[in-house]
């Protein structure tokens, strides 16, 4: 399996505070990588760096490389909009736009210039099917998305991210606001999606990481302490700090 993204000596500062300390990691294509660690350890910062969401925060300084398909994403020639189309993001709290279900999904493709109604219909249906929510919403596509349940809203947001045909999906604690049934739907969905997409997920739920991820990366105080095969990491961690964190001795 080849690596779709890699970080090399990635350091990031918010002003004078160093949030990432020389992170080195490889993200294999079409796999699920879970990022774990206590609050403030840098895992969300790392996630947001992968599609340059951190560019929007004033005072951010980044050194080192992140490459996507072999290209350094910080290279001046990189079009950030294109990067974000390929590397999509789903947030912790479902954030549908205050418009119809259909328009939520069609929003991205429209901004990328697709106007043809039949083509948009196809894209919307495929995205909703891929996000395992089509059957629940196919009869009310014109209804406002805010009327959906939390779990449905989150799957809608995943569908919206999928509509622009990304290669990588970044998920920042996508189930932390959801009930157990919605959570297991999203987990099932993530497992289905990895046939086509690469998923990187930040989670505070370690059992979730064990259940769905192929690889797990453990962050602590801005440092990537350890990363590798999930089963190995949770049964025989190499670093004592990893062991202490996953067994609940701190954090």
């Amino acid at each position, binding site marked *: 399996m080849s690596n779709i993204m890699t970080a090399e000596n990635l350091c990031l500062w918010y002003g004078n505070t160093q949030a990432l300390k020389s992170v080195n990691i490889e993200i294999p294509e079409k796999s699920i990588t879970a990022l774990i660690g206590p609050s403030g350890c840098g895992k969300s910062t790392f996630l947001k760096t992968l599609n340059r969401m951190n560019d929007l925060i004033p005072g951010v300084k980044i050194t080192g490389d992140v490459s996507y398909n072999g290209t350094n994403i910080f290279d001046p020639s990189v079009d950030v909009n294109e990067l974000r189309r390929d590397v999509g993001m789903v947030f912790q709290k479902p954030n549908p736009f205050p418009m119809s279900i259909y328009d939520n999904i069609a929003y991205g493709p429209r901004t990328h210039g697709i106007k043809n109604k039949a083509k948009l219909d196809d894209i919307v249906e495929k995205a909703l099917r891929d996000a395992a929510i089509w059957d629940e919403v196919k009869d009310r596509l014109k209804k406002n998305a805010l009327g959906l349940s939390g779990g449905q809203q989150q799957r809608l947001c995943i569908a919206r991210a999928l509509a622009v045909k990304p290669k990588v999906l970044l998920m920042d604690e996508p189930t932390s606001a959801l009930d157990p049934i919605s959570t297991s739907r999203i987990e099932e969905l993530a497992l289905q999606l990895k046939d086509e997409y690469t998923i990187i997920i930040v989670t505070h739920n370690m*059992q979730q990481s064990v259940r769905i991820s192929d690889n797990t990366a453990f962050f602590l105080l801005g440092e990537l302490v350890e990363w590798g095969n999930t089963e190995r990491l*949770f*049964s025989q961690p190499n670093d004592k700090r990893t062991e202490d964190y*996953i*067994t*609940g*001795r701190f954090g």
Partner: protein
Amino acid sequence: MRSKFDEQLALLNKEMIEMGALCEEAIAMTAKALSEGDLSLAAKVAPISSEIDHKERDIESRCLKLLLQQQPVARDLRQISAALKMITDMERIGDQAEDIAEIITCLNGRTANESAHIHDMAKETIKMVTKSVDAFVSQDVELAKSVIGLDDTVDNYFISAKNKLIEIIASNPTDGEYALDLLMITKYFERIGDHAVNIAEWVIFSVTGIHKEE
């Protein structure tokens, strides 16, 4: 932060020690009954064996509860799963002590032939069982390895006992049944040693994450 969990793990260790102590007691009693030809002592082994069976059930349900409630990972997961495997071996040790005690009652008060070193063999196996449980409790890989080393001593005792028993049959054919009973007894002691080795191997897995088969 995880005081409840640590408390439960400590209780698990305590029960493992108790089960190990029962195994030692069963073997020691069997060995004594054999060397003294004491049938009443031999009769006391079966109740200990059934106590060991109960202990196995208790520990098993404690482990399952811990898996369910704590969803352990890393060292905790290895410790609990190793305990689950170890109690199967300990339960077999209890059964085999009981089997030996049953054979002793068939010996009609005759004791084991001194030159067959059966008593020495019993002493070694008791040592192996004690050490393997101690190794689990103190998570001591070196101690566990020493148990695995002792298995050769026990195996050698078995071979020399077998040769001695062949001699007995050859020189006194009427003692054939007696010699075969003793052979069964030595075989059971040899098996007990093997179970202690299994326990020691799970201790090593519990600490290092590596089982010898890997």
